[in-house]
């Protein structure tokens, strides 16, 4: 097959991407710079500088995304490692259980947490029944609730690539280290962990970037007390509607995300070099 005929196969997809995805994004980015009848303007970015509250919401979003990512790593890494040690049948069941939540709507899963963690929910009733607490613990309508919800939704994005990398690790490497007298802790940190690090970094980055755009979970489990950038953008786009301001904020969000991605690529290249 020649190169040109290969290109003609992907051309429809390329056209679709450019027309339905790239062009609207460029239009959206342009909104902040170009006003009908007035031409080029930087007013909306100046507005951002004058009212730093929008940038603080962005900062808050980054912080929560970081917390949720760390929570995902703490839960996801041991889980993937445990799955590696299972037999082939056990692995299949474990993968099915990890992927299963994907089949349930994110809205349903988020509301389910209210049933589980609410004041009258299963967890609080069990805690009170067993005498561990007197009053209901507030799991919901704060950052804890949002973090739990986000970690739950995003766990598969971390576990699946990590698991794929872990099962590719040759057991003989670990056996060789053991035969040379390395204790289990050293084997883990010197051999096993470095081999999983690229997949861990990629998975964590994916989770972090997805966290930045979360809308449903903070809206429902945050009780309006956890301001995140998507919810702010919703207000600016749907209610006010200041699309130009929303566009300026989105542009900054996009740039920050790209910078994080670039930093990761640099680290990754250094690690693999």
């Amino acid at each position, binding site marked *: 097959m020649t190169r040109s005929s290969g290109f003609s196969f992907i051309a429809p997809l390329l056209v679709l991407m450019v027309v339905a995805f790239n062009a609207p994004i460029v239009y959206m980015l342009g909104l902040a710079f170009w006003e009908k009848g007035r031409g080029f303007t930087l007013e909306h970015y100046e507005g951002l500088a004058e*009212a730093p*509250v*929008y940038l*603080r*919401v962005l900062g*808050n979003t980054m912080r929560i995304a970081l917390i949720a990512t760390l929570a995902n790593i703490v839960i996801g890494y041991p889980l993937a490692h445990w799955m590696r040690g299972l037999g082939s049948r056990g692995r299949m069941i474990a993968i099915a259980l990890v992927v299963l939540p994907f089949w349930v709507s994110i809205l349903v899963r988020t509301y389910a947490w*209210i049933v589980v963690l*609410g*004041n*009258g929910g299963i967890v609080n009733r069990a805690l009170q029944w067993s005498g561990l607490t007197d009053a209901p613990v*507030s799991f*919901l*309508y704060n950052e804890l609730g949002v973090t739990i919800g986000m970690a739950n939704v995003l766990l598969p994005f971390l576990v699946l690539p990590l698991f794929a990398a872990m099962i590719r690790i040759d057991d003989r490497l670990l056996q060789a280290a053991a035969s040379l007298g390395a204790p289990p802790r050293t084997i883990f940190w010197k051999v096993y962990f470095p081999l999983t690090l690229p997949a861990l970094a990629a998975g964590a980055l994916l989770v972090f970037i997805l966290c930045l755009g979360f809308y449903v979970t903070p*809206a429902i489990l945050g*009780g*309006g*007390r956890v*301001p995140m950038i998507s919810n*702010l953008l919703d*207000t600016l*786009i*749907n*209610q*006010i*509607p*200041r*699309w130009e301001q929303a566009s300026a904020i989105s542009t900054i969000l996009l740039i920050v995300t790209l910078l994080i991605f670039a930093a990761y690529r640099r680290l990754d290249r250094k690690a693999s070099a």
Partner: protein
Amino acid sequence: MKRRTFVGGAAALPAMSLLSGTARAQSKEIRMIESGGASGESIQKGYIDPLFQKTGIKVVRESPSSLGKLRALVESGQTSTTLFELGSGVVLQAKKLGLIEKVDWAAVSPAAMFPEAKDEYGFGYQYFSTIMAWRKGVKEPKNFTEFFDTKAFPGKRCLPDYPHYCLPFALQAAGVPIDKLFPLDVDTAFKKLNEIKKDVAVWWKAGAQPPQLMKDNEVQYSICWSGRVVGDPAFGLSFAGGKADLSFICVVKGSKPDDKAAAWKLMHEMSLPENQAKAAEVISYTGPSPDLDALLPKDKLWQFPTSKQNKDVQYFENAQWWADNGEAVNKKWEAFKLSL
């Protein structure tokens, strides 16, 4: 201008509307975007069904109706949606942005209406109230000073995540009487909110949240829409200090003349008190006819935003003040939310 002078002369109107009705071609189906839920069903039963029986014109409903959606409709140059529901403050914003058209009141030839409902740019079709409510069994507040007193009235609160709902109530708690709320003393209102924010468990975005949260005992007190709580034995409520507001039906800029002719017919149906009584059966909100009270069930009058005993204790939304100051207040609101 000339058309509007006709509105005053009521006798000439039926003849006028007949003429304008027959003179133009008219669409058999138009679309409207409204706020959805029980409110949308009340539009269906109260106004759309009677219109269809009389004229054969169908009105297809969609929801929800955000201002952003209206802006997208107009800027993309579409003409498929003719009618759009907007809150009183949003009508002013939409007017300023050039997203809606004037109502041809001569063609609508409405039955008698309260004057504030007959706007140049919209048909005020539904009065609704934002009031205090609580879960039965807790200590019952009589006014917003007591509602915001979390020491004497212990319990979690659920407040709207919108400054134009929260700030006037907070000001009442600071001692401002309802006839002196506007211009709003924004800083005093935020000071009061700062005092009680630790007792606010949830700031709601959707009107269905507060009644559900009270039922689940997640919160004990709420500020919520009257139609969501009246008539439910699980809740106590009071209209004292509440906010009465009016929701409008507007015509999307650039709509086709044939569609508009059908839209005026629907607005005419919306002005008839007997239709408004049908709509009030579906949701406890009321239409703009001064003759409506006589048609409503006597034992349910206490539930409606505009019945005499309720109208007197509430304040009316000052849409103009919010149109002028809304955006600046919204920035302060975002800063306040960051401090939670």
